[in-house]
């Protein structure tokens, strides 16, 4: 919307419109360690929808059954200010131990896993297999005219593979969502275990 239009809305709405400083959105992978309780994931997702934040990717699973700790990873977009606010809002949730912005570290490892189904015969099938091979994807199941390949890697690599396979008979894609980790000496998971032991 034009500035004038926004001004006019602000004039009547009686709500101040936050100034736009022209900063572009960036993509961030946020990893949370959470208590594995009913509704924890719903709280996280509810927070994103209630506060108008984006969820581009989501994955969640239990990482320590005995102690009831799960890991939730969300890929989101926003200005630095918005990302900082998202982190603080998440950390305020009672069941969240900590939030780590994986994208902020140079020593990050970000991976996804995808299963890709191809429906192809003859030359197309050969071509698909060659491409898959060159991406170090491998075939995990096959049938008469379809087969499934599995690939893991950086999200961009997987996007590229999918786009290359598209004209050759792409019949389905399932992805796990992003997983991210920072390779540094500080480990939040160890911190939590230590804390739990103390009390």
């Amino acid at each position: 919307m034009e500035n004038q239009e926004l001004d006019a809305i602000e004039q009547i709405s009686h709500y101040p419109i936050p100034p736009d400083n022209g900063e572009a959105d960036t993509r961030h992978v946020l990893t949370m360690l959470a208590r594995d309780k009913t509704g924890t994931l719903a709280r996280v997702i509810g927070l994103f929808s209630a506060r108008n934040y984006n969820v581009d990717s989501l994955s969640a699973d239990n990482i320590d059954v005995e102690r009831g700790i799960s890991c939730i990873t969300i890929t989101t977009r926003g200005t630095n200010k918005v990302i900082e606010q998202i982190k603080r809002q998440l950390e305020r949730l009672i069941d969240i131990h900590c939030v780590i912005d994986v994208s902020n570290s140079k020593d990050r490892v970000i991976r996804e896993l995808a299963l890709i189904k191809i429906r192809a015969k003859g030359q197309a099938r050969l071509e698909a297999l060659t491409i898959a091979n060159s991406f170090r994807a491998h075939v995990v199941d096959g049938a008469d005219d379809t087969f499934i390949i599995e690939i893991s890697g950086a999200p961009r690599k997987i996007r590229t593979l999918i786009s290359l396979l598209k004209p050759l008979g792409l019949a389905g894609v399932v992805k796990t969502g992003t997983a991210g980790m920072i390779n540094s000496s500080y480990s939040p998971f160890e911190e939590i275990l230590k804390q739990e032991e103390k009390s």
Partner: protein
Amino acid sequence: MANKKMLNGAEILLQSLKDCGVDTIFGYPGGAVLPIYDAIYNDEHFKHILVRHEQGAAHAAEGYARSTGKLGVILVTSGPGVTNAITGLTDALLDSVPVLCISGQVPTALIGTDAFQEADATGLTRSCTKHNYLVKDVNEVEETVKQGIQIATTGRPGPVLIDFPKDIQLAKTEYNDSKKSYIPSYHPKAKPDLDKIQQAIDLMENAVKPVFYTGGGIINSGAKASKTLVELVKATGFPITNTLLGLGAYPGEDEQFLGMLGMHGTYEANMAMHGCDVLINIGARFDDRVTGRIEAFAPFAKKIHIDIDQTSIDKNIAVDIGIIGDAAEILLEMKKIWDKKSIKSQDKKLKPWWDQINTWREKDSLGYIQDNEDIKPQYAIDRLYQKIKEKDFYITTEVGQHQMWAAQYIKFPTPHRFMTSGGLGTMGYGLPAAVGVQVAHPDSLVIDVAGEASIQMTMQEISTAVQYNLPLKVFIINNKWMGMVRQWQELNHGCRYSESYSDALPDFVKLAEAYGAKGLRAEKLSELDGVIDEMIAHKGPVIVDILVTKQENCFPMIPSGAAHNEMILNEDPIPETSEEGLAKV
């Protein structure tokens, strides 16, 4: 231990509440909470206040909590019981009020079957509570209740809901009497950063146009916070303004107090905010009713923000120094550093700033002219204040013009005296809140300053007041309009008064009498003082209907999209109302 007594879930709930110091419950029975009501029947410890609607229970618990600093507890049934309570829970979330809501639920085996009076209470309240629980095992009841109370009352306080299926209320187990509730991922009390406190003091020491802007966080932090705030403000000689929820944290009649700030704040408070060079925000959240246009908010100021909730910092307004922690703790530290530095008197340095503030004060932005027999609403509230100021009084309000006038004209000497719905702006808050306040302070003078529109939203709670002989007073400023809606339609929508006029109103005097309360009315100026005196003197609940001038606007006002230094004052011309605008009235 083998000889421990077996209790059912309902009894364990009550025992846990008792152990946490709860003795008052606001509630309404229903099918899914009957075992709890059965347990209460046999328990002399609890004072249960039967409200007339669950929203009333929630607001009453808020009034109880905010006037005492203690936890407010409500008990409602499943389905409509809990959906009715939601407005009150949301109100408590926005205004950071410690409230625990126990809701009944259908038996565990029936959850998800669309059973009679089933509602997904935890799903519905996930975004309007600080935290919530569904108890699935009787062995978890005690821990859940104690954790819930810990969450509601620590850090930034807020509402917690515990959904309690009927079969769990009836199942039996032993009571553990555990003293400690531990939530590994919950860290409500951050240790404040001492370096940042030092930096803040340095900024304050060198300020020439400083102002304190403090909010409800001071009151929530407890008596020590208010006391230390007063000491620090006195030691520095700085001016101070309060938010709507912060009123009373600093004595309202003190000469360093500039009054409330924000959309309907005083001219001097808002001009000081606009002109200041150092802004010290403690326990306020830069709400949009306070900031006005964001780019133009305190444009010359270095901003210090102290808040217990990390999400408040840099959310609406970017600040120079953000300190996370408890207000009392940080204020004590600030006072200590200030004293230790033996900073010499700031009076001379601050004199030009105070001179400037005093010229703003001369504008008398709360001035009004009471010139004939028609009662001006401002005058009615001013007279009310004059007559109660020496007494032990508590004020609640509904939402609208009367609320702002109450905040402007009534000065609060101490915290916990003013209960109003700030964040959510809930019409219908005041009367049930007054019920809760009066239950907590049976011998004090509790007055709900109301509007004729708001009061009808929870009117039924006057029946609760009569039942428990709560001598609260409802002081209705009656102009027959939804006054604030009318005012915005006048200022922003071309004086087209769409659906803001109440062409039919009850006779509030007869209504009071129908409920078994006393009804009084003042129609002319000469009747006003007598009616207020009679209201105060009466030993039971009273509804007072004050018929005031109909077209009065609430000023001063920061109009839409404007900054603090662009306020509209009472003397500024306002548009004429056209015939067309009144066509549907």
